């Protein structure tokens, strides 16, 4: 019998049909993979299951009980536990309170029931051990954990429910490799206890490794369900994108011009980056690899002037640049596509047009962006051009960027920097959470930029990505450059060895 049975679910948001007539089920002890492009409706389907969204029609059977409308509490009582795509850790609560949020063990104290912290500590310690976080005490503030540790905390929380079905919405996108291994161990253990898992990821190799069955969604429609072993990675891509993806990653031409961009002994005030240096030649794409926390994003932020640095020289086309703020960087033709689109990439209250034009306008302005006039005609042309160049799919240049899918948001951000005519463009995790189709488009775009003489630097935690787009890959660890490989000699193993500090 299925532990979860969703039938004919329909769900619309203003202007979008997110789910049409989707049915979905989970059997005990299986890992059921959900696959689809960005915006296909995976997260929405799971949020319907967890009661965050109410479906327009359709029914959900949990434990043999039929529901037409759930809420998070009811869903949990029905045996569902979920790790949401967006982290839901409360920074100002400690670990145990995060795990047991809203359902802490109580004991009677006269007429009132009070929280039983002793019991809570015990339970927490057990869970932390399971997810390799036992170096922390249960009363450690969650704010002191790194992003990937927070994700592990979410996993601990999810397994603490004794749920019959655990949903994991892109749990691996912010985990390190060893943590992914740990997670898979946990999943296998849960399976053996007869717990059903829904697993969402854009990383096809992971799906092959851990999945049992796979359901594919496309634009809110149901494509089909298969056994994972019956599909090759190519099949998956074809089914979710609806066409064949040509193996697109063409390599660079091997021979490059002189060094045009150079960073020398860059150190940050907070010590997260020390003595960083890099050289980029004309037409070359340089990648930056390393473990989470190695200081790659931090180095890029420092180049970009977003954080104070204590030392460092930045040279572009032989000229020394003075960069104290992102404004200075922009003025000197440096752009940064940040790691976190939503928080630092674009303006939720701005239309596509405005999001694209902002940097170019700023670049033309004076006195720290204070003086300058706006010509709307110009803006419109700029947006139109970006749309054509980058093949952005939008309903119009006046549509709010926040209503685009992740991939298209990313393209808008790209459009912003390209319109500003940057000479150096730094990409930080450019394809995080972006589906394979869009990914290959973005790779092509990077190559095109490099061919047009723009310096392209790519920071990524996904080694296949770096191996696919870069001409040279540098490795960082503990805030320092550890070494570099030409693409012809780089392999995942070599990169990993250098990143973890073994060999060189």
């Amino acid at each position, binding site marked *: 019998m299925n532990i979860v049975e969703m039938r004919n679910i329909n769900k*619309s*948001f*203003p202007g979008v049909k997110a789910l049409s007539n989707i049915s979905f089920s989970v059997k005990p002890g299986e890992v059921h993979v959900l696959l689809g492009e960005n915006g296909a409706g995976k997260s929405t389907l799971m949020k319907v299951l967890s009661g965050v969204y109410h479906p327009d029609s359709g029914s959900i059977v949990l434990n043999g009980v039929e529901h037409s409308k759930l809420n998070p509490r009811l869903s949990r009582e029905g045996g569902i536990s979920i790790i949401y795509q967006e982290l839901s850790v409360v920074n100002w609560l400690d670990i145990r309170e995060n795990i047991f949020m809203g359902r802490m063990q109580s004991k009677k104290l006269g007429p009132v029931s009070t929280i039983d912290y002793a019991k809570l500590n015990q339970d927490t310690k057990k869970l932390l051990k399971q997810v390799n976080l036992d170096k922390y005490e249960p009363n450690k503030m969650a704010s002191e954990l790194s992003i990937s540790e927070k994700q592990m905390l979410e996993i601990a929380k999810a397994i603490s429910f004794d749920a019959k079905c655990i949903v994991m919405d892109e749990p691996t996108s912010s985990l390190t490799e060893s943590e992914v291994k740990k997670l898979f161990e946990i999943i296998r253990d849960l399976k053996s206890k007869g717990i059903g898992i829904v697993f969402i990821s854009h990383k096809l190799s992971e799906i092959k490794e851990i999945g049992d069955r796979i359901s594919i969604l496309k634009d809110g429609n149901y494509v089909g369900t298969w056994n994972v072993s019956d599909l090759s990675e190519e099949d998956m891509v074809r089914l979710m994108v609806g066409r064949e993806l040509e193996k697109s990653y063409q390599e660079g031409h091997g021979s490059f011009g002189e060094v045009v961009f150079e960073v020398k002994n860059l150190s940050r005030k907070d010590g997260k980056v020390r003595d960083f240096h890099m050289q980029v030649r004309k037409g070359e794409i340089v990648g930056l690899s390393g473990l989470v926390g190695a200081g790659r994003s931090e180095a890029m932020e420092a180049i*970009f002037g*977003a954080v104070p640095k204590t030392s460092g020289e930045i040279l572009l086309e032989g000229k020394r640049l003075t960069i104290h*703020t*992102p*404004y200075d*960087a*922009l*003025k000197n033709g440096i752009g*940064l596509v*940040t790691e976190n689109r939503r*928080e*630092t*990439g*674009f*303006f*939720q*209250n*701005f239309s596509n047009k*405005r999001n694209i034009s*902002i*940097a170019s*306008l*700023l*670049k*033309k*302005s004076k006195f*720290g*962006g*204070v*003086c*300058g*006039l*706006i010509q709307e005609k110009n803006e419109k042309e700029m947006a139109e051009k970006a749309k054509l160049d980058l093949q952005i799919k939008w309903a119009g240049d006046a549509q709010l960027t926040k209503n685009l899918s992740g991939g298209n948001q990313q393209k808008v951000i790209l459009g*912003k920097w390209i319109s500003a005519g940057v000479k150096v463009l730094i990409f930080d995790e450019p394809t995080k959470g972006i589906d394979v189709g869009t990914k290959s488009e973005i790779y092509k775009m990077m190559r095109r930029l490099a061919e047009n003489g723009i310096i392209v630097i790519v920071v990524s935690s996904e080694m296949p990505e770096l191996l696919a787009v870069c001409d040279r890959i540098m490795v960082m660890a503990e805030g320092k450059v550890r070494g570099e490989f030409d693409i012809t000699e780089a392999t995942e193993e070599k990169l990993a060895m250098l990143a973890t500090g073994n060999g060189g």
Partner: protein
Amino acid sequence: MSQGKTNKFAQFWDRYSTVSILCIMILVFGILRPKSFLTPANLVKIIEQSSIYILLGLGEFFAILLGGIDLSISSIMALSGALTAKLMVDFGFSPVLAILVGVVLFGLGIGVLNGILVTGTGLPPFIITLGTQAILRSLVYILTNARSVSGLPTSFQTTIGGHFLFFPVPVMIALLTALVLSLFTWKTQCGRNLYAIGGNPQAAWYAGITVNRHTVIAFALSGLCAALAGMVNIARLAAAEPNAGTGYETYAIEAVIIGGASFFGGVGIIPKVIIGGLIIGTINNGLNMAGVSSFYQQLAMGILLIVAVTLDRFFGGRSK
């Protein structure tokens, strides 16, 4: 929360909610007091009386646009008025010079100070301006020794407090300020940047916007508008009062919020602030005209605030 409201009414309301509320109010008061309320003279009066609320609202708008708030505007209004009056009366400054020093320089200066305190400490503007509100009010008392300053030059009074082509000059000042600020928000880089910062301060920083500098500018504009309100006020009254404007920051906030700006920043337009200010003026005038007892006036104001903003929340698209 959204209930698929793609119907005509919602669209209409989204665009015209604030104007509609104003019209409904005028209609209601017009029906209640057809002879006294709906006269051209009274309507002009309403606009004149609203000019201070509009000016204060314009300033507050910039603080709220950044997702902050400026509680000190009422004190700035009083201090600037008192200073300008003192300069003319006790120090013999010419009106032009007094306005330059007491309104423009002072207003901008004190606003810059607010801005520097906010950006320098990183504290919520609510706290900083709560502090400066108290400090500045106390400076008004110290400056004036809690006495009103009268005997302003006639030329000052008849120009700023007078009429120009039938229209009261305070109205002209308010509308002109609104026009300039509208252009500023629509057509200049700086204005655009303020919206960006209000929408997402972190993204603004990463896009190359000098966030602190712009925050200071927003508070400077707030200070300047408050000082202009102070100038209009002393011209209208022909005197500067130490207690002037006490509690008026509330009117300003109401004007901005009723005008559809979001408390979370990044949303709102100047023309709607004007309507917001007119709404405040109309209620005050209408309730007077209708002879509503003062006990009930606050009641009406409170209910109106909640109802207007709720309507906007549910049918308007903007203030989410």
